[in-house]
């Protein structure tokens, strides 16, 4: 199944459209916790129609600060009240030295960070009483790296015992920005831990930099990488189409959803071709 990020920009249209049919919706709990009035009514209507997946923004699992347990309790309540199927977060930090930054900064790929972040993810999982899925983020510069990106990610997945949210576009973006082969990178990921996939568009801003904007349609090479991922995966997992800016007509988003579903169908119908 293929879902869509539930954006306030197109929430009303989505709920009224007879031809737009995502299998589920995804929200960031931060954008809906403590919200009432007009948006709450729309959100409740959406919850009656679609299963909910969640993707946090502010937990900041990679932060040097202490976890915000008060906020985590609100997330837990939100997940319970909305019957959320998955809670995922980013392998990054968005809070440092007691100040929120409201964007995703890259964690230094260090052994210290592996231990620290893994411990925090375990703490989050214990608190929420559920496994979470951690997303590989796109990044535009490494910071004081001691390990390779893949070694860093795999060590955390292993030590934290969490699931992986595989953002295929991010792997493509990172492969371009840091000159590595995206398929070879996917080959090294523990596919048994993939619980959720994200797909999105991006913007190439210079000859050596792509920014992960979620503001464009998915490009063909990212579809190809998705097909490759599905082949490697050899099983069904939910896939999300992210579109946060520059929102087109819903028909265009439906076409992207259809294409993702078709790629899934091809690989799920032919499992014998799944592993090379």
């Amino acid at each position, binding site marked *: 199944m293929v879902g869509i990020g539930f954006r306030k920009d197109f929430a009303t249209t989505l709920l009224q459209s007879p031809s737009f049919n995502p299998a589920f919706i995804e929200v960031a709990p931060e*954008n809906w916790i403590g919200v009432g009035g007009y948006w709450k009514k729309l959100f409740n209507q959406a919850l009656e129609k679609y299963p909910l997946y969640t993707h946090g923004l*502010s937990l900041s699992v990679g*932060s040097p600060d202490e976890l915000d347990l008060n906020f985590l309790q609100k997330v837990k309540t939100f997940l319970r009240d909305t019957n959320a199927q998955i809670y995922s977060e980013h392998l990054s930090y968005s809070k440092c*030295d007691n100040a*929120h930054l409201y964007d995703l900064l890259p964690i230094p790929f260090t052994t210290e960070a592996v231990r620290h972040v893994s411990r925090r993810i375990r703490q989050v999982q214990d608190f929420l009483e559920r496994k979470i899925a951690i997303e590989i983020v796109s990044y535009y*510069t490494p910071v004081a790296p001691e390990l390779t990106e893949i070694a860093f990610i795999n060590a955390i997945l292993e030590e934290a015992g969490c699931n992986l949210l595989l953002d295929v576009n991010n792997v493509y973006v990172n492969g371009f920005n840091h000159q590595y082969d995206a398929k070879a990178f996917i080959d090294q990921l523990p596919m048994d831990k993939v619980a959720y996939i994200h797909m999105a568009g991006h913007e190439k801003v210079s000859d050596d930099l792509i920014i992960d904007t979620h503001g464009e349609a998915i490009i063909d090479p990212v579809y190809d990488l998705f097909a490759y991922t599905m082949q490697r995966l050899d099983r069904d997992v939910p896939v999300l189409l992210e579109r946060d800016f520059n929102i087109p007509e819903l028909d265009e988003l439906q076409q992207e959803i259809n294409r993702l579903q078709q790629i899934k169908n091809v690989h799920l119908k032919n499992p014998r071709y799944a592993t090379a």
Partner: protein
Amino acid sequence: MQLPETTHQHQSALADYCRTGKYSAIPGVREQHVTQYRRLVYNVVDDMLQSAYPLTHHLLTTREWNALVQEFFSNHPCQSPQVWYMPKELYEYLSPKEHKLKNKYPFLLELLWLEWLEVELFMMEDRPAAYTTIGDLSTDELVLNPEHHLQQFQYPVHLKTAKQLTPADKGDYFLVLFRKPDSGEVNFMNLSPALVAMLEILQEGPQTMDALIRQCCAAWQLQLSPEIQAAAHAFITQSLDNRLIIGFKSKH
């Protein structure tokens, strides 16, 4: 247990750069690309503040606005994990401070607060109320919409465009902001002190129109006159219409 010093230091250095725009070398960082983080972080904060405070953004010059956003984000550690709630912290940051913008625009804090109240009332969690929309104005008890906020200002920031406000406007202004139950839209009504008193009585619990007017007159030591009766009736009717008074107390 906290991170050992080195990794923490590098994370702090990057976060600091994003907040202040002042870069100090961090090992392994590609300097031509790290600027993207400062740009992305700053844009999120600037966009959220512009969206919460469109009137203030319009009032200030571009240079004043940019300097304010930069000063706020550099000096203030934002506490809310919810970005939509962060703009309130700009108001809280400026409130206790001596600031040149407050000297130039003496009504600035009140304008910010009015704008924030609109955001918060629109977004805030529902406050349940027991009421029915069917009732008799002359006999049934009136129920105040619980999703409201009474406010006093020294400047009529809710009545005049900010650029038209002058020191001569200074006075006492009262208003109520409230969220309409059906649309979720936030409206406001300008109030006289007597009408504020009437709403404060209704805040305590449902009252019939007659009891409300009598209590209000007693509080203000006014002789109940046909004029007062008519004005109060008109206000209550209007408030029922626009759902500041949400309905009548249910008899069951």
